[in-house]
């Protein structure tokens, strides 16, 4: 967290934080410079917002609580416990933002260290659902203020005595809990009519994940070589539910769907590495790891009057084809072996060659059984016991050669070629009413696949003169995927994913160039251009190859930094982006016409920042940013749900900092934020005034 624009609290760091710090530092009274530096500090801060419009959307943008926050923004404390032992404590605790950190390290020189800590932060989401411009339809079904809290508790102990093997033992607990939006929107007959339903109703996830991780490592390093051996054990579980409301508010049709996905898993990994400097010109590194993951699976998808309902075959609002399942139980086992070896060979002073090889083998088996539920035309329940399993085995072999050459004056060149070959087998079996006279095969399929990837990259940097660099980079990548199903009982039906795709080729050309230069004594410019074009060609079973996608992006970026005075800097930057994804679907006619529009993601991002040292103790900063997506939205809501982006978001702020004395400084900040969004019909618009203050005490 920077100390000038503390509002990364208000989301956006100052454009040139480093320069800002220099302003104040460069103008400090001479007397201060003679004092020993004060390393420790305590920052107390508070922020508050006045806001109208889409409050969850605003909160998601600034990633801070819309109702304000306050507390300890930063704490740094170092203390010499004795001649050889040091304590370092870092932390923060911002109530409202649920942003907490306690990071304690005790180090004993030439013996080792102990670490203990806890970190928690919140990520906000907006539960806004869909909007249909044609009828001005939108529904709010629940509190759309959603957030996930991520937590990490750790303890680490290490023995680091010089000339001895280093031992390290670490325990982590990772948690993820809360609610977030889902794009699997519920359908509604109220947007158009009951015969033309549209998926617009907001859905949300409930997330509850936990993972314990214990890792032990030993490393021995000498002048010529080093080796390491590591063990890792993970134990994790999660139960996540997606909550969807279908036909909300429609008499006889309103029902809630709760889909639960659960896992309980154990991961065990052993790994080792060895690095050997064979002679001055050659160093070889190799590593190997073996991992097994055993997982117990659970889940259900149940329709009911409320979320988390129990399956009821006579549920009043049930509809034909309300498909679901319950009582899912299963097991999965994954075994993975990875090994790689690389060499760094320097035959001459200006040439480095790095060949590398990697091998990976994965065997995966999964098996579940569950009760599948459905309703027929007369709403009579249709239930089946189902068993499903799959076996996946594949190998990946990758090779690469990289060469770096610096034999040309003021030029560095880098070339790399990479080749990956992967092949494997996927067998799938799905049985209805297994082990009974009614047993039927739903899916019995065996698919062989082969993937080949080639990538060639070249990079050149030309240091034209001191302060001026031209950098260019190009890569070409092609991947061909071939699928063959020697056994497939689904060929005569429409439900045969993924066996329907027989071949698929991906091809990418990527180029970028950058010019960094000084334009006089006070002005610095960085200009960059990026181009990428990707095509995907797809051949389905029995059909011809067709170009299924064409993606092109152009990005032009410019940054100017101007230091007209020692006490004043100005920096401005702009990105102009043209980004398109085209599929042949937009050209279809008849019943398929107008359903799928081109997917454009064009936008402009502009930022301007300035800092000025008012006197030897005060700085003033100004920031402005504009992000505008344009020409990405086509209102085809008379045919389907209109998707796309057309929004304009602005944030302006002014920050004043003053150093009251050697120990104390204050920061005050005001920011204004505004968002205008077209596809949401204005429901994602917001306007906000943000106020923030901080006191820092150094000691």
């Amino acid at each position, binding site marked *: 967290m920077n100390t000038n624009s503390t509002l990364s609290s208000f*989301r*956006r760091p100052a454009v040139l*934080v*480093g320069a800002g710090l220099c302003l104040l530092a460069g103008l400090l009274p001479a007397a201060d410079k003679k004092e020993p530096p004060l390393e420790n500090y305590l920052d107390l801060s508070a922020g508050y917002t006045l806001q109208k419009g889409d409050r969850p959307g605003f909160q998601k943008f*600034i990633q801070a609580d819309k109702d304000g926050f306050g507390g300890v923004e930063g704490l*740094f404390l170092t203390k010499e416990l004795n001649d050889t032992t040091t304590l370092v404590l870092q932390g923060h605790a911002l109530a409202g933002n649920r942003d907490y950190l306690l990071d304690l390290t005790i180090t004993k020189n030439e013996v080792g260290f102990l670490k203990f800590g806890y970190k928690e932060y919140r990520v906000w989401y907006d539960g806004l659902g869909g909007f249909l411009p044609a009828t001005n339809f939108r529904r709010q079904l629940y509190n759309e203020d959603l957030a996930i809290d991520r937590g990490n508790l750790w303890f680490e102990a290490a023995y680091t005595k010089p000339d001895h093997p280093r031992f390290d033992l670490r325990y982590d607990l990772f948690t993820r809990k809360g609610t977030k*939006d889902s*794009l699997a929107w519920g*359908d509604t007959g109220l947007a158009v009519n009951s015969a*033309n339903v549209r*998926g617009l109703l907001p859905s949300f996830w409930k997330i509850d994940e936990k993972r314990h991780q214990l890792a032990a490592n030993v490393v021995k390093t000498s002048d010529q070589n080093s080796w390491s051996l590591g063990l890792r054990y993970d134990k994790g579980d999660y139960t996540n539910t*997606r909550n969807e409301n279908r036909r909300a508010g429609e008499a006889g049709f309103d029902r809630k769907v709760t889909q639960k996905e659960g896992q309980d898993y154990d991961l065990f990994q052993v790994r080792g590495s060895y690095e050997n400097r064979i002679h001055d010109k050659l160093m070889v590194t190799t590593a190997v790891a073996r991992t097994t993951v055993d997982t117990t*699976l659970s889940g259900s998808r149940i329709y009911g009057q409320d979320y988390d309902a129990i399956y009821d075959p006579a549920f009043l609002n049930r509809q034909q084809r309300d*498909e679901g399942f319950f009582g899912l139980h299963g097991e999965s086992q994954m075994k993975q072996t990875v090994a790689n070896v690389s060499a760094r060979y320097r035959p001459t002073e200006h040439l480095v060659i790095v060949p*590398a090889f990697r091998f990976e083998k994965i065997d995966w088996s999964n098996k579940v059984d569950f009760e*599948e539920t459905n309703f027929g035309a007369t709403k009579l329940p249709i239930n089946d016991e189902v068993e499903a399993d*799959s076996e996946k085995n594949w190998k*990946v072999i990758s090779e*690469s050669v990289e060469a770096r050459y610096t034999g040309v004056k*003021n030029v*560095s060149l880098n070339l*790399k070629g990479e080749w*990956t070959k992967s092949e494997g087998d996927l067998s799938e079996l799905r049985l209805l009413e297994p082990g009974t006279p009614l047993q039927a095969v739903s*899916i019995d*399929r065996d698919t062989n696949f082969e993937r080949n990837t080639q990538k060639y990259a070249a990079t050149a940097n030309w*240091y034209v003169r*001191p302060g001026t*660099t031209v950098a260019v980079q190009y890569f070409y990548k092609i991947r061909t995927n071939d699928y063959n199903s020697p056994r497939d009982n689904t060929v005569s039906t429409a439900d*045969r994913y*993924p066996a*329907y795709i027989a071949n*698929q080729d*991906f091809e990418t050309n990527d180029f970028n160039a950058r010019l*960094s230069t000084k334009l006089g004594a006070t002005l610095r410019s960085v200009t960059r251009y990026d181009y990428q074009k990707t095509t995907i060609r*797809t051949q*389905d079973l029995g*059909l011809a190859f*067709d170009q*299924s*996608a064409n993606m092109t992006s152009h*990005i032009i970026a410019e*940054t100017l930094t101007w230091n007209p005075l020692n006490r004043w800097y100005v920096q401005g*930057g702009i990105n102009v982006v043209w980004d398109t994804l085209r*599929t042949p*679907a*937009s050209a*279809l006619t008849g*019943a*398929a*016409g107008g*359903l*799928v529009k*081109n*997917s454009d*993601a064009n936008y402009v*991002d502009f930022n301007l920042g300035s800092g000025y040292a008012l006197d030897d103790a005060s700085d003033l900063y100004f920031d402005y940013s504009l992000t505008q997506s344009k020409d990405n939205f086509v209102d085809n809501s008379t045919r*389907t*749900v209109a998707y*796309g*982006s057309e929004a304009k978001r602005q944030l302006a702020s002014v920050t004043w900092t003053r150093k009251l004395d050697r120990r104390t400084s204050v920061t005050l900040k005001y920011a204004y934020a505004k968002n205008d969004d077209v596809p949401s019909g204005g429901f994602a618009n917001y306007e906000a005034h943000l106020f923030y203050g901080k006191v820092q005490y150094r000691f």
Partner: protein
Amino acid sequence: MAPGGNGTEIGCESCHGAGSVHVKKGGGAGSIVNPRTSPETCFKCHQDKRGEFSLPSTHPVLAGKMSCADCHSPHAGDMVAEGGTNFGGINSTCLKCHTSQGGPYVFEHEAAREGCVTCHSPHGSVNAKMLKARNQNLCLQCHFQQQTAPGVILIGGRDHSSFLTRGTCWSAGCHEAVHGSHVSSSLRF
């Protein structure tokens, strides 16, 4: 470093700032710029990424809750610590935090083997969930097939014209299990 002297500014200090205090102190945190605490160092050359992180759907890097180094290894060769001959497999960077998306699934989505970036723009997007496209094109980029009849949109051999009036493939109630499924090979749910 290239000979000639013009590139002497390009080295450790181009990302970490002046190192004299760091050297004088004998190393250690707090005496030198740590790019992990702010993405501004990376944006100096990768300006396009500043724009992407400013978009409506993004990882919280500008908010200070993540750093570029959480996904990239700035001192390694090709920056991303996965794929190719790197030790980490494809997607391993994403699955560090998004563990539940990694499965396992009885019926997997092939796209996951192509990489999460087949559907997601990891630095940011104008679309929700950092999707490369918000409409049906996201799926059609791989699942558009040669059309053998006029006036329809055949996907997997079945006409989807009426289905697509409800919305996208995954938000119209038809293919919600986008990362994989235990119960349905067509990734219904």
